């Protein structure tokens, strides 16, 4: 089960996820991501503070968005990475590809500096 919530802070989309981002829920997230890109939203913060579990399909969805917004000169930033998702990010060395922040506010702020 994955629940998500989309908020707009100026031109930054904050995407908060709760639950499991895995092979079952990743397709739904991919659809959301397509919508974001169709709306030309290229500054995205993933708030993973309440994400309990992520697998390679879930990472694939985030990496896909990351690659796509970067070609449009945008970026994806990660906030409140903890628990199992933090371990997976570390394992995949994605902590080196993404900017990771302690809070959503810091992540949003970084887009404006």
């Amino acid at each position: 089960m994955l629940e998500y919530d989309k908020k707009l802070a100026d031109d930054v989309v904050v995407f908060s996820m709760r639950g499991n981002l895995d092979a079952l829920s990743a397709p739904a997230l991919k659809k959301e991501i397509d919508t974001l890109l169709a709306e030309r939203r290229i500054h995205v913060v993933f708030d993973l503070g309440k994400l309990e579990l992520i697998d390679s399909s879930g990472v694939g969805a985030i990496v896909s968005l990351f690659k796509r917004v970067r070609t449009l000169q945008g970026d994806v930033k990660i906030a409140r990475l903890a628990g199992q998702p933090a371990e997976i990010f570390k394992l995949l060395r994605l902590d080196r590809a993404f900017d990771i922040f302690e809070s959503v506010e810091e992540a949003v702020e970084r887009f404006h500096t």
Partner: protein
Amino acid sequence: MVEGALRGTTYEIDEACVLGRALDCQVHIQDLTVSRRHARVSRSNGRFVVEDLGSGNGTFVNEVPVSRHILNPGDIIGVSTLRLRFDEIENSGLMTDSVTMVGHVETQPKILKTFDARRFPFEVETNRTVSKDELQRLSSRLKTAYAVSEAIANLLDLDQLLPEILNKLFEVFPGTDRAFVMLEDSPGSGNLVPRAVKRKRESDQAEIQVSKTILNDVIGRKHAVLTRDAMADDRFLSGLSVANFGIRSMMCAPLLFQSEVLGVVYIDSLTFGTFAEADLELLSAIAGQSALAVGNARLHGELLGRQRLQQDLQLAERIQQSFLPKRVPRISGFEFSARWDPAYEVGGDFYDFIPLPSDRLGIVVGDVAGKGVAAALYMARLTRDMRYFALSEREPERVLRLLNAAVLETGQDDLFVTLLYAVLDIRSCKVSLANAGHMPAVVRHQDEGSLTVFDEVSGLPLGVLPDTTYESVDYVLKGGDTLFLFTDGLVEAQNAKRQMFGMERLLESLRAGRPDAPSLQDRAVSAMQTFVGDASQVDDTTIVCVTREDDTADLPSLRRTIPPRG
């Protein structure tokens, strides 16, 4: 209208219309020479008929006075000084379009008899004496039902089967004017759509209206019904000709297959009292046989679809397997084992052994993100690229850098690959490891409980960022050491509570027990399977192991078997 005050006006007749001076006439004519209700044009047996309604000046067709006349396209209807041309608009749609379900039929049908379709037809009540005639009748009907069953049982294509069922219904019930079969639009949907229609007369194009109430009754209560239009009784009794009023008696039976309603068969007759109550039992029997044939045809169709999908997958599987090593290498002093277990027929996991110059062996374990045929086919391509780069670059970190560029070149956004590349020098037993976001390599040493996890040196997965650089780490395998490489499917396997098997449990299974490649592989797999239990949520899992055989291991036992000299 071709002549008259309203010349040029077109009147559409759906079922019936009356021409006259009265205000409520559909074709309202303000002319004193026209009677209040002069003539009627209506549909009967699929044809349009004009009738004079007892007018003062008469009704004409092509200038000939008529009381009732079947109209042909182009006929000129004359009412007083007015001339109207009759034309039919071709019903170009599928025949099945002419069947509509309506909530309310003008003449609400009256159910005369029902028959429980779950019952075996032609049952003879045992506590009752049955006359010879009755037995004969039963026997003849059983024969009919059997003959129908023979004719349709082997038709597995619905497009052949349904028309044949309708043909048989016309043979068995000669009074039938129209018959059709409705089936669910998709299995289990409960939404019935007409699938085949047959009419006695080709000229019959009239819309067949079916009462929803009756259909719901047939489906819901799983019984066959015989109905007659309620108003027909009154009209019949009042002495009017029934044939002109579109009166019908009809029978409808559910197609019951394994107690599930697949659809209905429906027949009707425009002649009053065509179907007798005993016919209902026979229809129910034929419907039963038809349902069996429809059910079989449906299963056959599903099977064909599955077979096609299966063939696609098998093709992808063959392509994929052609790129996977046929067997593990046999190199003196080393023992190899490999296990490749895709979650479906095809998977994104892959491994490879690449013979390299100067007595070296490349070992690759990787995982293409994504599943199914696309990931499998990309994997096949990646394996080829990997072999090419492995032969052109000596350092594993340089190979990964080139491979990263190749993955990015595909331009597929959601594509990324985790991969671990190990180069084993057979003479020095040195392993050089380079990791692109993949699960870390683990070395199990000969002593129980002793492991080294190479989780420090790893770069980004392939295909995430351009110009990614990688590092490599060297390790010299000692006698009895096993290099254990795996994909994330092993640690991400989930149990019914959606907990992951995880790295800790995996390492635990590697610590205890024998240190050789096949033993480690078996223990890891069985620990994962025990943890997962019956949960079906599994990813591809791949394990590749290589053990440097311990050349000193047998020495102690040798010493024991050589008897001391003395």
